[in-house]
Structure formats: structure tokens, C-alpha cells
């Protein structure tokens, strides 16, 4: 019996042409809005068991003993596994460095680390049994910041490191260090008429996806396992799961089940190995669903950061140099920290021309919660700091902050601090011009004939002001984000495309392993197939490991890379189709041999528009299927000493203007409007593009004014693992977001497109902060900003 709630094929017709550039609707949109969509947590299998994880209650401790006897004796419990039960010598996993134990061994390194797993016939039974497992901890001092991590006598979070970064880091509690040195900062500083320094703090943000970690592992007759799971990259999971299970990769089948958001938080494994281990041990399907509390411990967060910046500028407003140091807290395990360091360092200058730089970024090992990928990935923290610096410089020079930015804005041809030329449009000054040109929202919008509309005021429904103390502020920011995996990573995607005749009509099927996490790839793939193959009806096959890797749904890369792979496979299929056509019908019309041929509207047409025949006739009795890998331009590693190298594939730019109203007495903020202008190269689906920009903008707003995981510095324990106290914006906190989309093609990319998902998350936060500074006159060097920071009561 198959699992229920497993994904099925989605066939999309389209009333219009439905090709690229059109706002076709998402096939899963209505299902999600009406609650009909099956998420991974909705999956079910006859006779299945429920898995439960026992997690550490302390952040740093030796495990003296684990006693499972009482828990095992609980009726309904089928298995309890600890480290000692792991079946092979491979007992760790990790995206880049395999430093994360599947189950804790001898030591726990952060609050909420998995120690034991339970399978039982009811989730409550599993939970109660887990609570009966007795773990004796001997607590160790906690490492929580740079000082405690790099102290001469600091306890090493990981003893005996032998990963590929361990040789070049200054301390074993530093995961990775990337310097970038270019030009002569000392000489450039001499030219500076003003110098501005700042020390900035970025709080720990959570992805706060709504669908908690969940999946279903079903043992198979061949001794393997079929895992249905919500993830961001099936093949990366597979590479980490199979060795721990002691199975070859072809015996671990993976199918993507409904994903309820990701934002980077599903790049690392969560319950995958645990469910498979329990399923293989018990011979029964095992489902694991985290609750919200557990979810806060079940995935990595955005790196909190300390950023130390020094900029210089001449009297006429030209930047002279940048010296900066970015310290990212990676928490207990490496996760994506090395790549985040690469991004933070290489993007630390922002979208500006600065020839002389001295940059250093490090990620720490500490006993804080592990941090890794989240939308914006290292570029977010840097943007918060350099944009604050730009405002400080402009103020010191008596210049308009937008004009100052425009004066220093990079453009096509500018060299990055890594020495890499920006070889496609970089309309930084133009994006700033566009957000500045948008009309400002009217003042005092809360006033109405019936008195103050509190929904329009800071505090909202809480009725804290009727206009008293309210001051408006306006702020600007712009950012730069890389697209795709960088630093020499072989960042490819695979697509399998099939055309055939069904019901007298030529139809296409697109099969990739791309994780649809909400970005809209399932829509875009159908649009690409329609454009390239001239079919109306496209079926999107469920994503699984029966086709080659599609890479990660992250780094704003899926439309570029898997979209590129789908386009490429379609082109290969089209060639094959035309070959068949020539073979069958070439003798009827000379154009078959001489003209450039296209597939449009179900027909084979010449580039002059002459119809040569029906695609369905060409494909009668035949089908064409091609699976092919596709790669973007290769990148290079950054030099470990100088940071030089063509490390990135493409850059993405967005600018924001924030208008806020601050109740200066109570320190409450209402963001009135967040206008955004972004260059997207080519909008494959304009509606989705605007949705992505508005979503990214809102996530940036969240970390500007409310979103923060608070970790107790004395115990390294998480203090607010709930949506009661980890606040994300409601619709009343979400402003009007007018979006101005610019389409300047990048000739290196499919259709000229630019990855778009992350850039708006960068500049939104510093724009809001700048607006709050404008309203209050306060310096505000940390985000999120809380009422106590605005009222001197911190």
C-alpha cells in the first residue's frame, strides 16, 4: 500500500500561451490557500509508527550515561536508538564538514541536540517514552562569543579537527576565515577627508517556515528505504543519509513531499536519518513531525554577527577605503558556515566602488544554536552594516544619502574586492533613482472623520497612540547578492523532458529533482516547456531521486540553474523532434531542410512563420525523452590569503525606500511603506517575481523590528522557542510594498534572467533602520531594534 499524501503529478494547461514572461498562476496556489495541499506532515501510511527525538536540555555537557530501560518497557514502544545503535562507522553528517553527530556521542554541544530516538505506535506514547529516558549530564562551561571561543584556554567545541579549513584558521574554534585584501588601505586612508567607524550587531533570525520538519520513511522489500520528506535538496540529503544507514544510494529512494517554506532552514538534515534508522530497525513505516517548539531546535538559524567597519571618503564624496571585520556565530556545528563566510567577506563592500580594502570574515564554533543558511546568506548581515556606514558618511559630509550612494555606485565593469569584474548590468544608481522617484505616502494617514484609526498607527490594535509622539522617518538602502553556488562549486542541475502525443495533442512532461519550497519552480518549468516546445499542456513529475540532482533550492539559483537545465533539455528534445519531422515529412516541403524551425502552438513553424505541420503528427507513434545536466559558468575558489578569485556566478541588486512612523515615547514602530526597485534580468513570471520581492522585503522587515532568537549568554539556552515570543510580521505589520521591476538582461544567463529571491531581503532591513534613525535621531547599531532601544530603557 502506498503512502497517502505523497505528491502526484501536476498537469497544467494554460488558457493563454502560458510561456515565459506571462503571469501564469501557480498549480498549487489554490490548494494551499484553501488548506487542501498535502504537506509532508500530512502523510500517512497504514501500520506506521511515530518517531520522537529526545534532545539535550543543556547546551554543553559530557554525557555520563543514558538509561533507556524504563522508556523501552513502555507499552507501544518499538525501538529506542542511541549513538551505540548506529549501524555503520559513518556516524556524522554535514553539508560541507561532517561534524554533526546523528545522535550525540559522549558530549552535547548545543541546547536541543538529538540524544536518542524513539519509535512508538502513537505520537504521545513516543513523547512520553522519550521523557522517560534518563540522561546524566556533566555540564561544561559554555562558549558563547568570540572572546570565550578564542581565549587561550578555551575548551574546543570540536577536538581533533581535520577538515579542510582546520589548517588555515587561527584557532580551532574558528570554522573558517576568509580575508580579502586589495589595494593599499594605509595609503588610501591618507587621502580620506572623513573617516567613519561603526560596530554593528545583527541578531539571530529564524526562517520561521510554517510547515515544521516532517517526513515518512517506508522500509522497502529490497532492504532499502523510501523517504518522503520536505527538504531543499534531495540529492544532498541522499549523499549524507545513505552512508549512515550503510546502504548504497540506489537503495535510498527519496521523494519530495509537500514543503511548507524553507528559506535555507531545510538545507541541513533534520529528521531524515532518524526516521530511516527507526524504519529499518522496526521494519515499519515511521513518520516524524516536529512541533513548533522542536522546530526551533530542528534547523539552523541565520548567523548572528558582530561587524566592525571603517570607511573613508574624500570631501567630494568618493569612498577611499574599507577596513572591516565580520564575526559570524556559527554555533555548535559547521553547517553552511564556511560558505556564509565566503559571502559575507566577498560582499562586505556592498554595491560600491572601493579599490582599497582590508576585509576579514570568520565564523565561530560556539555552544549557541547552530547557524547556517538563510535567505541572503552572509550578505544580509554585511548589508546592514555597510548601509548604516553609508548614511553616517553622507551625514558627516553633509550630502544627501541617496546621492552619496549613487556617486559611489558600482556599474557594469566595476571590479569586486575579489578582483572579479561585474560583467553584466549593475544598475545600482538607477535602482536608487527609481525608489526615490516613487511618490511618498501621504502624511497622517491615521486621521479620519471618526478619529484616529489605530490600525494605521504604531502599536496598531493595541491602541497606544492616537498620534501622540509619532514621528515619520524615511530611509534608503541598496544591496548586492550573489546568485548560485560560488567558490568553484560544481553547481549543476539535471532535467528530464519528454514529449509525446496524448489525446491527439502533443504534451510535455518535465521531471527534475528540484525542491519546490514555494518559489514557484513548478510554474516556471511549465512555462519554459511551453515556450521551447510549443505545447499547451505540461505535466510536472514529482521531484525525486529517480532523476539527477537539481542542486539546492537556495542561493536564488533554481530558476537560473534548474530553469536553465529544463530549457536545455527542451532544446535537445526539440532538435530530436525536428529530426523526426525531417525524416517523416522533409520531402513535402523544402523549408524542413533550409529554414530555422520553431515549435509554436502545437505546430512546427519556420522562423518566417510558415506552418510546416502539426507537432502531434510528427510525434505520432513516437516519443522523445532526454535527461541532461546543465551548468552555468564555472567559478573559482577565493585565495585563502588575499581573497582574490572569480568566485561568483552572477550578482543581483535591489534597493529599498522605507517610510516608517515611530512612536518616539513608547518606541513602537509602524512601517508605512517599503518601496522596492529590483533588476531581475527577465521576469519569467512577473506575478511570482513581485511575490518574491514582497516576501523577501517582509522577511527583512521582520529582522529590523521584531524577529530574534534570544539565547541566554550564561547558559547558551534558547529563551523564546515559540511563535508566542519569536514574533514574525502579521499583515498589520506588513506595509504597502510598491515594486518597480527592471529587466536588464544578463547575456550569460538563460533568457537573460537574474536570480531574485534573496536581494530584497538584504536592503529591506537597513532601509527600515535608516528610516527609524531618521525619525528618532538615534544611532541604532543593532537589529532588530526593540522598544527599549528607542526609549533608553534597554
Amino acid at each position, binding site marked *: 500500500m502506498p503512502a497517502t499524501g505523497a505528491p502526484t503529478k501536476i498537469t497544467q494547461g494554460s488558457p493563454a500561451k502560458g510561456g515565459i514572461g506571462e503571469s501564469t498562476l501557480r498549480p498549487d496556489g489554490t490548494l494551499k490557500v484553501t488548506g487542501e495541499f498535502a504537506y509532508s506532515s500530512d502523510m500517512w501510511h497504514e501500520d506506521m509508527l511515530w518517531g520522537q527525538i529526545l534532545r539535550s536540555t543543556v547546551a554543553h555537557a559530557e554525557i555520563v550515561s543514558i538509561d533507556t530501560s524504563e522508556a523501552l518497557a513502555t507499552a507501544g514502544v518499538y525501538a529506542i536508538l542511541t549513538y551505540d545503535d548506529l549501524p555503520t562507522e559513518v556516524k556524522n553528517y554535514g553539508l560541507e564538514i561532517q561534524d554533526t553527530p546523528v545522535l550525540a556521542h559522549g558530549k552535547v554541544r548545543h541546547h536541543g541536540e538529538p540524544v536518542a530516538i524513539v519509535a512508538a505506535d502513537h505520537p504521545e506514547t513516543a*513523547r512520553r517514552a522519550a521523557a522517560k529516558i534518563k540522561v546524566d549530564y556533566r555540564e561544561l562551561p559554555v562558549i558563547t562569543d568570540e572572546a570565550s571561543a578564542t581565549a587561550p584556554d578555551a575548551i574546543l567545541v570540536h577536538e581533533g579537527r581535520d577538515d579542510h579549513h582546520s589548517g588555515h584558521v587561527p584557532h580551532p574554534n574558528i570554522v573558517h576565515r576568509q580575508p580579502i585584501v586589495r589595494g593599499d588601505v594605509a595609503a588610501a586612508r591618507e587621502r580620506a577627508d572623513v573617516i567613519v567607524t561603526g560596530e554593528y550587531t545583527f541578531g539571530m533570525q529564524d526562517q520561521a517556515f510554517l510547515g515544521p520538519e516532517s517526513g515518512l520513511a517506508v522500509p522497502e522489500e529490497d532492504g532499502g528505504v523510501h523517504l518522503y520528506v520536505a527538504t531543499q535538496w534531495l540529492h544532498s540529503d541522499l549523499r549524507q543519509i545513505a552512508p549512515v544507514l550503510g546502504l548504497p544510494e540506489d537503495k535510498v529512494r527519496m521523494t519530495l513531499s509537500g514543503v511548507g517554506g524553507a528559506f535555507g532552514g531545510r538545507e541541513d538534515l533534520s529528521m531524515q536519518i532518524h526516521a530511516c534508522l527507526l524504519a529499518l530497525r522496526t521494519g515499519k513505516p515511521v513518520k516524524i513531525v516536529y*512541533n513548533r*517548539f522542536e522546530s526551533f531546535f530542528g534547523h539552523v538559524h541565520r548567523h548572528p554577527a558582530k561587524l566592525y567597519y571603517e570607511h573613508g571618503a574624500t570631501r567630494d564624496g568618493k569612498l577611499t577605503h574599507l577596513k572591516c571585520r565580520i564575526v559570524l556565530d556559527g554555533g555548535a556545528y559547521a553547517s553552511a558556515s564556511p560558505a556564509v563566510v565566503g559571502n559575507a567577506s566577498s560582499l562586505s563592500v556592498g554595491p560600491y566602488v572601493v579599490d582599497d580594502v582590508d576585509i576579514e570574515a570568520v565564523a565561530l564554533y560556539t555552544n549557541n544554536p547552530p547557524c547556517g543558511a538563510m535567505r541572503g546568506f552572509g550578505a544580509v548581515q554585511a548589508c546592514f552594516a555597510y548601509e548604516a556606514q553609508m548614511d553616517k558618511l553622507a551625514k558627516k559630509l553633509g550630502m544627501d544619502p541617496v546621492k552619496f550612494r549613487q556617486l559611489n555606485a558600482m556599474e557594469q565593469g566595476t571590479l569586486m574586492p575579489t578582483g572579479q569584474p561585474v560583467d553584466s548590468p549593475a544598475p545600482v544608481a538607477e535602482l536608487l533613482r527609481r525608489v526615490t522617484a516613487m511618490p511618498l505616502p501621504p502624511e497622517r494617514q491615521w486621521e479620519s472623520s471618526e478619529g484616529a484609526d489605530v*490600525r494605521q498607527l*504604531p*502599536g*496598531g*490594535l*493595541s*491602541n*497606544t*497612540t*492616537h498620534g*501622540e*509622539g509619532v514621528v515619520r522617518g524615511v530611509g534608503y538602502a541598496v544591496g548586492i547578492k550573489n546568485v548560485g553556488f560560488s567558490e568553484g562549486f560544481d553547481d549543476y542541475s539535471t532535467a528530464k523532458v519528454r514529449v509525446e502525443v496524448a489525446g491527439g495533442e502533443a504534451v510535455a512532461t518535465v521531471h527534475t529533482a528540484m525542491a519546490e519550497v514555494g518559489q514557484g519552480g513548478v510554474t516556471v518549468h511549465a512555462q519554459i516547456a511551453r515556450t521551447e516546445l510549443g505545447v499547451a499542456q505540461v505535466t510536472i513529475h514529482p521531484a525525486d531521486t529517480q532523476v539527477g540532482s537539481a542542486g539546492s533550492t537556495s542561493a536564488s539559483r533554481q530558476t537560473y540553474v534548474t530553469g536553465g537545465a529544463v530549457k536545455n533539455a527542451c532544446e535537445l528534445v526539440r532538435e530530436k523532434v525536428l529530426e523526426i519531422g525531417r525524416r517523416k515529412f522533409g520531402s513535402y516541403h523544402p523549408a524542413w531542410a533550409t529554414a530555422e524551425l520553431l515549435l509554436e502552438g502545437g505546430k512546427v513553424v519556420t522562423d518566417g512563420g510558415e506552418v510546416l505541420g502539426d507537432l502531434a503528427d510528427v510525434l505520432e507513434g513516437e516519443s522523445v525523452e532526454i535527461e541532461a545536466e546543465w551548468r552555468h559558468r564555472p567559478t573559482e575558489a577565493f585565495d585563502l590569503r588575499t581573497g582574490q578569485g572569480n568566485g561568483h556566478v552572477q550578482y543581483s541588486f535591489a534597493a529599498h525606500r522605507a517610510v516608517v512612523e515611530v512612536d518616539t*515615547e*513608547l*518606541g*513602537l514602530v*509602524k512601517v508605512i511603506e517599503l518601496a522596492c526597485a529590483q533588476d531581475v534580468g527577465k521576469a519569467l513570471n512577473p506575478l511570482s517575481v513581485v511575490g518574491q520581492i514582497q516576501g523577501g522585503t517582509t522577511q527583512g522587515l521582520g529582522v529590523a*523590528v*521584531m524577529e530574534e532568537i*534570544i539565547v541566554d549568554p550564561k547558559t547558551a539556552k534558547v*529563551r*523564546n522557542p*515559540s511563535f*508566542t*515570543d519569536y*514574533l514574525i*510580521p*502579521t*499583515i*498589520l*505589520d506588513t506595509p504597502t510594498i510598491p515594486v518597480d521591476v527592471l529587466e536588464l538582461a544578463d547575456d550569460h544567463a538563460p533568457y537573460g534572467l537574474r536570480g531574485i529571491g534573496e536581494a530584497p531581503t538584504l536592503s529591506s532591513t537597513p532601509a527600515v533602520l535608516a528610516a527609524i534613525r531618521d525619525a528618532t535621531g538615534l544611532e541604532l547599531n543593532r537589529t532588530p531594534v*526593540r*522598544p*527599549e532601544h528607542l*526609549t533608553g*530603557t*534597554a
Partner: protein
Amino acid sequence: MDFLRPASWEEALAAKAEHPTAVPIAGGTDVMVEINFDHRRPEYLLDLNRVGDLGEWEVGEESVRLGASVPYSRIMEHLRAELPGLALASHTVASPQIRNRGGVGGNLGTASPAGDAHPALLAAGAEVEAESAARGTRLIPIDEFYTGVKRNALQPDELIRAVHVRKADGPQQYSKVGTRNAMVIAVCAFGLALHPETRTVRTGIGSAAPTPVRARTAEDFLNAALEEGGFWDSGKIITPSVAKQFADLCSASCNPIDDVRGTASYRRHAVGVMARRTLTWTWESYRGTRRATEGAA
């Protein structure tokens, strides 16, 4: 966990007498969160949803007898004139879905210092109607109801049947600070009611002390100042220095803590700001009513 489902109030009281540890549940907006987070696992849940009259209210001469389970959305819709402070407080409770389920009885039963209804009840003046099978009904003055952090004056065999809230005889206001513009637990909250009939002002403070409290010193100061200055009769604008001192005294009557929602220092400060603003709003409204009355006469 046993789920008790009494069909009537009498059965509910009997069940509570038999199982004093039973946790009453009506809207479930608080209890279910606690259970889902595994913060508590009561031996018995006592479901009050079949006891129909808990969802009813009666408007009397002096007060409104509000059934324990009347949802906040009903209070907002139907009792805005009689209980303006509580209606404003109801507005700030969570989301529309929660306001359709939750009621004041649950707020009182939990007695969290962050409960949104408490400052409004303290400011308006109220009595909690508690009942037990053994001793029948008693009315507990709201000032004596909150006895500690999440503790109240109920006996183990008692259930809250209703709360009697004094009908407004003057303007009332309610403000709550949260770090989000909707759906947020109070960092602190403040309720204020003018009682022109008795020429008194009452207050209520939420989330700024171990229990909901009244700012009695501030009330005494303000009552004296208004009386001495003849403000009730003249309806003149309250002097800024009086408003400021009232606000400072409200701040001083807080005994807050630092927690993930805010600092103690911020809470004290914010209560002062809300005290001054709500006093201004209610007094402006009072002056407006007086002018309207004089105009009519």
C-alpha cells in the same frame, strides 16, 4: 487524561467537587497551548462547552453580568457602550479566531499577569462570581481576586460562572504595548476608567507586576488633585504637571521583571506613557460629554 463533559452547570460543579485538580476548559485558547507545549498535563479536563448559559450576558442597572465564556468578539460587538474598557481590551486579544473562542472566564482562571482583560476589569470595578457545589455562590471583588503569579482566590472546588462588571458611568480607555502591531502578548498594559458619579478614577496595570494591579497611590493622588482643583465641575484641562505626576506614580506602582518580551525599565516607562495618554483621552472625552450636555441644556 480524562475528559469530563458535564451537561449542566450543576454537573460541572459536582465534577469539580469530585475532581478538584480538574482544569476547566471553555474556548481552550489558553489551556490547549499549555497542553500542546507540554507545560501542563492535567489529570482531568473539565469541558464547559455544554453549559450553555456561560455564553450569555445580562445588562443590569448597575453592572453587566458577563458569562465566563462570552467570547471577546461578542464583547466588542455588543457591550461597547456598557463596558468600553473591556471592549477595547478585547480588541487587543490575539487574532479574530482566538477572539471568537476565548472569554474573560479563562483570563481570570489562568490569572496570568499578562491577561488582556485584567486591567480593564480593575479599572471598571468588577466582582467574580464563583460557585461551588458545597458552598454555593460568592462574589469575589476583583481587587482581591489576583493572589500571585498565575494564582487567584478560587478554591479548588470552585468554578467561575460569570463576572459582574460595573457599567461605565464615564469614559474608559485601554492601551497595551507589544512588539508587534497585532496578535501579541502584552509587554505591559494599562486600563483607566473615569467614574464621574463617584468622582474617582480607577486604573489597572497588566504585565508589570507579579499580578495585575491597580496604581492606588496614583489614583489617590489624582482623585485628590481633581477634587481640590474642581476639575470634575469645571471640566477644565488637566494640568500637565498633574498628568505627569499621575504617570510617574503609575510607573512607580509597577514591580516588573526583565524577560524576553521587554525590560523592567521599559515596562515602568511605558506604563507611565500609557497612563498619561489614557488619562488625556478619557478626560478629553469627559469634557466633550460635559460640553454636549451643557449645550443641550
